[in-house]
Every structure is written in structure tokens, then in C-alpha cells.
């Protein structure tokens, strides 16, 4: 019972609707941009190569379990035709636009989340898989199941016109859990990344040669001079190794000491931007998700 009460206090503490709405705008806005202009920011975006994937032989089709399960009612779990995927993508984009402006927000965001899950999963059902969309997809579902359209949305405007006045800065008991969930997801992901490194290599991972090697490998593969330059400096690589592991391993502290987010969130963001520049792994998709660590309403009220 005490655990249940602690869980309830942590995840269902009232939070301002506006905080959730700002996160909705940022997360849905960037995801929509990525779907509409896939090659603007990505090297091999799944949203821009459905035709290439569909042209692959059936022998390459290795559906992820979640994709197989979701396709079961429609295609018996078999490989869907290209036309179905193209339409799914179109529907997802329209739903995303509705979710962004906050019109029929919940069903729109649910469709957008489902479309993203299916299209990303389809792209990773040919043997190669990545996780850059993982946290975004989870957050889209969380936004769909929460009152994220109660503020900064057409739904809220229509409610006002009907005479239902809801202050966007007022707390709502269900406005905080998606934000808290994502903070926990970030903490778990970073902690598990640190544990995997220490589990596989122990403190040897921090020897500097490891980071030199990976930077060199990716630098040669992608032709990035910056990563080869860093790899050429052993002591810098030792320092960056320690920094990376400390950020990942200690990130969960932000769950208990929220002010530490001022330290860890910029550090993690810098780490992802650095990885993108040197190793071309586009984890900068996480940047809008860091908005869950920002007390938007408090900041905006403090400025007034």
C-alpha cells in the first residue's frame, strides 16, 4: 500500500496543463517536421525510404514482434503492401497536424503515435534496427492518453467559446504523469547504457582507447574530420569517457533532486549533439523531449 501511495504521489501529483501542452507542441512539432522533410535532418530516414524498403525481397522481411502483432488484424501479420504504408504515413501526418494544433487532440495523437510506431517498426523489420524514435513513440502515446490538449489548443479555444473556462496555468491531476514518466524513461535509459558498458568492459571502458577507437571507426565510416581529430587526442578521450559515463550513470539523480536537471540535462544534450556531429547518430531527436524537465508555467509566470 505504501508503495502504491508513493507511486501515486510521484506520478499523479497535479501539474499545470500548460507544461504538458508545451511538451506536446515541441514533441509533435519536431516529429511532424521529420516526417514531412525526412532528409532535412536524417541520413537514412525510414519515413523517406518506404519505396526502397518495399522493393526488398520477401526473404529480407523480419518483422519486429510489435509490428507483426499490429499487422495481424489487417494483413494476418504478413508484409504489408507499399500502398498501405504510404496511406498510413499520410494519415499519420494529418493526425499529427491535428495533434499539433490541438484539434480532436486525443484521437489525433493516438493515431499519430500508432502511425509512428508502425512506420518506424516497419523500417526496422529488415534486419537492421535502431532506437532513435523509442522515447518519442512512448511520449506520443502518453500525450494521447493525457489532457495534453487542454491548453494551447483549438480544443481549449472551443471549450472557452462554449463557456467552459479552464486556466492553462492551473494544475490538473492527470497532467503530470506523462512528464514524470518520460523523466523516468530518460533515467532508466541512461542508467542501463552505463550499466551495459561497465558490465561488458568494466573500468577498461574508461581507458580512452575505447572512445578513440569508436570515434575513429565512425569518423572513417562517415568521413567526419571532427571525430578523427578527437580520436587523435588520448587524454581528451579519457576525459570524455569519464564524462559520458558519469552523465549516464548519475542521470537518475534528477528524479530526486530536480535542480540537478540544470546540470545533467544540458550535459546529456551536449553529449547527444557531440555524438551527432562526430558519429552521425541522430539522438538529437531527444532534445525536444528534454522539455519535460522544464517547469514552463513557473518560468512564464516568473517573467510576467
Amino acid at each position, binding site marked *: 500500500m505504501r508503495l502504491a501511495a508513493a*507511486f501515486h504521489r510521484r506520478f499523479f501529483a497535479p501539474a499545470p496543463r500548460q507544461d504538458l501542452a508545451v511538451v506536446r507542441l515541441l514533441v509533435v512539432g519536431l516529429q511532424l517536421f521529420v516526417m514531412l522533410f525526412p532528409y532535412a535532418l536524417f541520413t537514412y530516414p525510414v519515413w523517406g525510404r518506404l519505396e526502397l524498403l518495399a522493393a526488398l525481397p520477401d526473404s529480407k522481411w523480419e518483422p519486429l514482434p510489435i509490428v507483426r502483432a499490429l499487422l495481424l488484424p489487417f494483413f494476418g501479420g504478413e508484409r504489408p503492401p507499399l500502398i498501405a504504408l504510404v496511406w498510413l504515413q499520410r494519415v499519420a501526418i494529418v493526425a499529427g497536424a491535428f495533434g499539433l494544433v490541438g484539434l480532436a487532440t486525443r484521437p489525433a495523437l493516438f493515431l499519430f503515435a500508432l502511425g509512428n510506431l508502425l512506420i518506424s517498426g516497419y523500417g526496422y523489420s529488415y534486419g537492421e534496427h535502431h532506437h532513435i524514435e523509442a522515447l518519442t513513440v512512448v511520449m506520443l502515446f502518453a500525450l494521447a492518453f493525457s489532457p495534453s490538449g487542454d491548453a494551447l489548443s483549438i480544443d481549449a479555444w472551443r471549450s472557452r467559446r462554449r463557456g467552459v473556462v479552464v486556466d492553462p496555468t492551473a494544475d490538473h491531476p492527470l497532467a503530470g504523469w506523462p512528464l514524470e514518466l518520460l523523466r*523516468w524513461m530518460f533515467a532508466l*535509459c541512461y542508467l542501463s547504457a552505463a550499466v551495459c558498458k561497465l558490465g561488458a568492459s568494466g573500468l577498461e571502458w574508461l581507458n580512452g582507447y575505447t572512445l578513440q577507437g569508436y570515434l*575513429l571507426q565512425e569518423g572513417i565510416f562517415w568521413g567526419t574530420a571532427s571525430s578523427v581529430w578527437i580520436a587523435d587526442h*588520448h587524454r581528451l578521450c579519457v576525459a570524455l569517457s569519464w564524462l559520458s559515463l558519469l552523465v549516464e550513470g548519475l542521470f537518475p539523480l534528477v528524479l530526486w533532486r530536480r535542480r540537478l536537471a540544470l546540470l545533467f540535462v544540458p550535459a546529456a544534450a551536449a553529449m547527444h549533439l557531440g555524438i551527432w556531429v562526430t558519429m552521425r547518430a541522430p539522438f538529437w531527436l531527444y532534445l525536444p523531449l528534454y522539455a519535460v524537465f522544464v517547469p514552463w508555467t513557473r518560468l512564464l*509566470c516568473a517573467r510576467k
Partner: protein
Amino acid sequence: MNRAAPRSPLAASAPPEAAPRLPRLAALFVVSTLCLQVVAGFKLLAPPRRFEALAPLRLAPTPALWPFLDYDMYSNHWHEGRSIDRPRVVGIDAAGARHELDAEALGLPFRAFRDEWMNPLRGGDATCAARIAARWHERGGVSLESIVMENEPAIVTRDGIRAGAILRERTIPVAAAEDGR
């Protein structure tokens, strides 16, 4: 940190809202999402193969739990002295002079050069040698007699990246490559 958010005067005057339904579905979503992330991230159902005793627990190896993040790339350590291939393409002209033919020299985007020109050449596709020679010539370079595929390994050391001994992997006479085209 949101709990301390200041309330606006409007909030105080707003009509009391209906008490929200018990957030059971939301709680279920939160608990199941966190549990799946713990299982995926800490590989509870995909222990490393080196732990043979835990083999029966390998019920959900990567990517069974996608989209939950089980990212363990780059977790193995390197040691000093380890090397990595650094392939390069060199053209030899009639006078025996060497010309390094990289993406910039050929006026190609790096990835196009790597995927469509250098890697096929490395794999033994001689027609690429003719294409490279022709492109170099078009761009004002001298005529080439042969195309050489070299590998100059890069070695990780305390003093930075050091070049290893150059290995000549393949030499393709341009004339023969053109004939085979």
C-alpha cells in the same frame, strides 16, 4: 518541481472541475512502460551469451522488445595498439606519379564515393576503376595507367592515431578495366 508552480488569479476563480476518474489506465500504462524499459534496458530477458548458465533466460533477445531501448552499442572496450582499416584509392599515371583519389578530388559527396565507388572497387568490381579514371580525367586530372586500392590501418595509441604499414590490396590496370566495361 511543477507542484510549486504559482497559480494565476484566474485559476482561483475558475469553477471547480469534476473530479477526474481514477487514473487506473494511466497508472497501468506507466507501470507497464517502466517495467518493459527495465527488462529491455538491463537485458533481464537477454543476458550476455558468455553467461551460459543464464541461457534459459534468453527469452527476448534484441530486438524483441523494440521500441524499448536496449542500446548496448559501443560497450566493448578497446586496447592500445588496436587498428582499424583505412582504405584509400590511389591513381598511378604514366610517369609513375601517385594521385590520391578521394571524394573531394573526384568531386563526389563522401557517402556516394564510399558506397558507389570505393567499396565496390574494394570488393573487386574492376569497372569502378574505369569510372574513377574517367572521372579524374574529366576533372582535369592526368590520364591514369592504373588504380590501386590501398589500406593504411589507423592504430589507436596513447600518442594519438598512428598510421600502420600500407597494404596494397588490389591494382587494376585502367585499360583492362575499360575493356571489361
